[in-house]
């Protein structure tokens, strides 16, 4: 019987699974940003070292156990030398290599840059408020950045601690009340990258997604210009009715739509709601049906949200608000 080596094979098989399973979209080893790339490189270095260490030491454990079991008689192993070399000298060398890699990687990350695009990101309960510095552009839960330009996210919170994490772009940065932290990186290529809150922040920690849309520099400029010009004006009879309902009901007390008199600060800014992929920071896909449902009973989909139920609002009013919000893009 050869149980321990079966165990080792089993672990080796798992390691292969590990390497194979990680490369998909949304993974930290599928990097699309400067920080994520450098960290992925670091990972592959330490992963290679880890595999060697695991196989060598694991092999020694199994070998030693089986050797002893088979009673091969006296061994000439010099214990003290074995412990010095295996337990101190070799690990020290490996650790120094890892320390070098760590310092090298760290020094290249999160450094200030004079031409960075500054964006304020504030963790809320449970959504993200996003403001572009030097413009009037405010959005939530989905935001655009240009590829190839340094980004400086100034992350903070006015409630509990959250952590901003978009695995394909960069590591985490906590949003901590009373302090402003900086997450600095450059996105490599256009695309849509999903992230989420990583620090436990209460009831709806699970539903606090953030979506970063990376545009080309040109696309981003056009997006920002269009976004600055949004005025929340309805474009049809239905959306006009929606706008009226929005102002008349509690909506405007909590939400802002730029260019209108709705300037509530409790909930997310809805000025470009129609362009967002999700509702409620990742609870539902943004479709008119889902939005109807959300307006009717948000707490059912996201227990604990500050958004109240609107059970008394007639269905056609809800449909009008939905049409209005979906038109804002």
């Amino acid at each position, binding site marked *: 019987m050869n149980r*321990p080596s079966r*165990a080792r094979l*089993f672990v080796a098989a*798992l390691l292969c*699974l590990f390497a194979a*399973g990680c490369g*998909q979209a*949304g*993974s*930290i080893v599928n990097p699309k940003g400067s*920080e994520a790339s*450098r*960290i992925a490189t670091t*990972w592959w270095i*330490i992963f290679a070292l*880890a595999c060697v260490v695991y196989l060598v*030491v694991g092999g*020694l*454990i199994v*070998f*030693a*156990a089986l050797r*002893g079991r088979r009673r091969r008689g006296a*061994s000439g192993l010099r*214990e*003290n030398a074995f*412990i010095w070399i*295996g*337990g101190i000298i070799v*690990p020290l060398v490996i*650790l120094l290599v*890892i*320390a070098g890699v*760590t310092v090298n*990687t760290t*020094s290249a*990350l*999160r450094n200030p840059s004079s031409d960075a695009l500054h964006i304020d990101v504030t963790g809320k309960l449970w959504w993200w408020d996003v403001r572009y510095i030097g413009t009037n552009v405010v959005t939530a839960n989905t935001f655009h950045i240009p590829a190839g330009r340094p980004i400086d996210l100034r992350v903070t919170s006015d*409630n*509990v601690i959250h952590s901003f*994490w978009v*695995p394909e772009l960069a*590591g*985490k*940065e*906590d949003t*901590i*009340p*009373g302090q402003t*932290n*900086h997450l600095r990186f450059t996105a490599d290529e256009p695309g849509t990258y999903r*992230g*989420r*809150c*990583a620090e*436990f922040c209460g*009831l709806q*920690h*699970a539903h606090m997604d953030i979506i970063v849309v990376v545009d080309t520099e040109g696309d981003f400029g056009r997006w920002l210009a269009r976004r600055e010009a949004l005025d929340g004006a309805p474009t049809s009879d239905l959306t006009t009715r929606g706008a009226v309902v929005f102002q008349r009901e509690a909506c405007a007390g909590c939400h802002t739509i730029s260019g209108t008199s709705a300037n509530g600060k409790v909930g997310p800014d809805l000025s470009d709601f129609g362009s967002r992929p999700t509702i409620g920071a990742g609870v539902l896909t943004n479709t008119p049906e889902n939005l109807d449902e959300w307006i009717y009973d948000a707490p059912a989909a996201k*227990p604990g949200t500050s958004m109240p139920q609107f059970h008394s609002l007639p269905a056609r009013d809800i449909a009008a608000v939905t049409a209005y919000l979906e038109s804002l893009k």
Partner: protein
Amino acid sequence: MAISEMPKSELDEELEEKWADMPGVPGFLNTVDHKRIGLRYIYTSFVFFFIAGALALVLRVQLAQPNAGVLSPETYNEFFTLHGTTMIFLFNTPVLAGFGNYLIPLMIGSRDMAFPRLNAFSYWIFLFSGLLFFASFVIGHAPNGGWFAYTPLTSKPYSDGINIDFWGLAVVFVGISTTVGAINFIVTIFKLRAPGMTLNRMPVFVWSMLTFSFMAIFAVPSVTVAAGLLELDRLFGTSFYTVGLGGSVLLYQHLFWFWGHPEVYILFIPATGMISMIIPVFSRRPLSGYIFVVTALVATAFISFGVWVHHMFATGIPPLALSFFSAASLLVTLPSGVQFFAWIATMWKGVVEFTTPMLFAIGFLLIFLLGGITGVMVGVLPFDWQVTDSYFVVAHFHYVLNGAVVFPIFGALYYWLPKMTGKVLDERLGKISFWTMFIGFNLTFFPMHILGFLGMPRRVYTYNSGLGWDGLNLFISIASFLFAAGTLLTVVNFVKSMRRGKEAGPNPWHADSLEWMTSSPPPEYNFAAIPVVGSRHPLWDQHPVPVAESADDDARRPLGVHGALEKEMTVTEGLDARPQDTLGIPAPSYLPVAVAFGVLLFFVGLLVTSAVIGVVGAAVGLFGVVWWLWRTEEDVR
């Protein structure tokens, strides 16, 4: 002396009479026997272990599928908070204290702990704090802020209910037990070793408990302060953690992790101490590199106090400061490397016997190797930015705290329960249990690394489909039941073996340390006459181990049978264990349980903000302590 001429059975009877606890409930409440207390610690913490494990299984059922509705978000948050807090505070720490309590006096050739009543007191505190904590579950207001209860989420504005107060008060409460226990261990180990057991002849498990105790004394005050200030904020409106009123939320994290990271080693070091006892016995030779291993334990203790900020790498602390903690986090692996190679060399040069305890030890090696490697990884600052607070970290710390602590503890059960109960556990069932646990463990926790890479944060009560997480989560949930089944097989084994297991005899494993000298289970007085130690492995090297005779001077009077009859122990010198003085063993007493009950009332008073209950509790506690001290003067010569 007349005693030595007494017929054996007559002497036994007289000893039994002198040492016997009262029968029934009174004896249960007033015993100060370290063995009863130690076993009680072990059994109680295993009850908590299985409760917390069951909670984890419910969490896994909820996570088996995307957008499942098995648990509400509220209940989910309560369950994972209960799971983590219970495992750390009410299982891992006390179960090790339990093994220490039972085994240390036997291993060092003493008749009891240095402070037997304090020992009873620390158990009652542990039990009462655990009951107080679980009362939250019974009344449906369990803590829901995670086991590290970060502010401001746990501060009054964001957690208004009584839930968090249960957590904060129980943490302060159970800290009393850990601290009192640690002091008791230190004094016992330094002052009650059998003559001849110099420091460098001490079994490694004793060294590990000594290290555990020193670490606990320095670390526990920090978590007591962290949770205590949190409760001051919550109950009395202070603002230690309130931003804008001069408080800081990061202060909490510093205080918490200044305990929290050493705590990992507080749990891990005694577990390695167990391994260092088991591996040599089943390799039929002394541990290789004893000095290396002992130095490694002590070095780990020191370095582990310099790594706490690696839990806070993403909090915006400047990289230069972080890199020191990154370096220390890498450095702390060196002592573990030393221990690994000492264990490997021991097996290499030995004749290895694959008993159940040994299987758990080897399983531990293979699991901890992986957990240690991922530990180095999370010490790498930029890599940690990616994986912290993700399932990668969940995988890592379960490899360390479950794999590298629970596996040694199960190994220790198979190894030492025969001593404690007199019955050997079934080997076949034990091996099946081990393999089920080993395979179930790896299938459960290894895929969590991948989930972390795919962006799954820890502590989410559900997730959407389409992120590549569904299959892995289902797989993990199924595997977790396999692991649980493995642990239950050991319970079945225990029940079965207690009923009709093989008699263990004094030394079923042909082991080397003094606890195997006495009968199984040992008599109340452990050793009628104290052994005289002349080797690091007395039962292997000394045939037979000589026992001391009582002499007329104070220092040596209790060594022989006379000491057992008089309920006395010899105090020995800290370094070279030369007899120095006499210490009486106190009679059974209700004071420990009474004082602990007073402390419980005090905390209940704080919890329900009732001044009356609080004052009554404090009065009972203080009155009890005064009486306790006064009586001790009378009791002990």
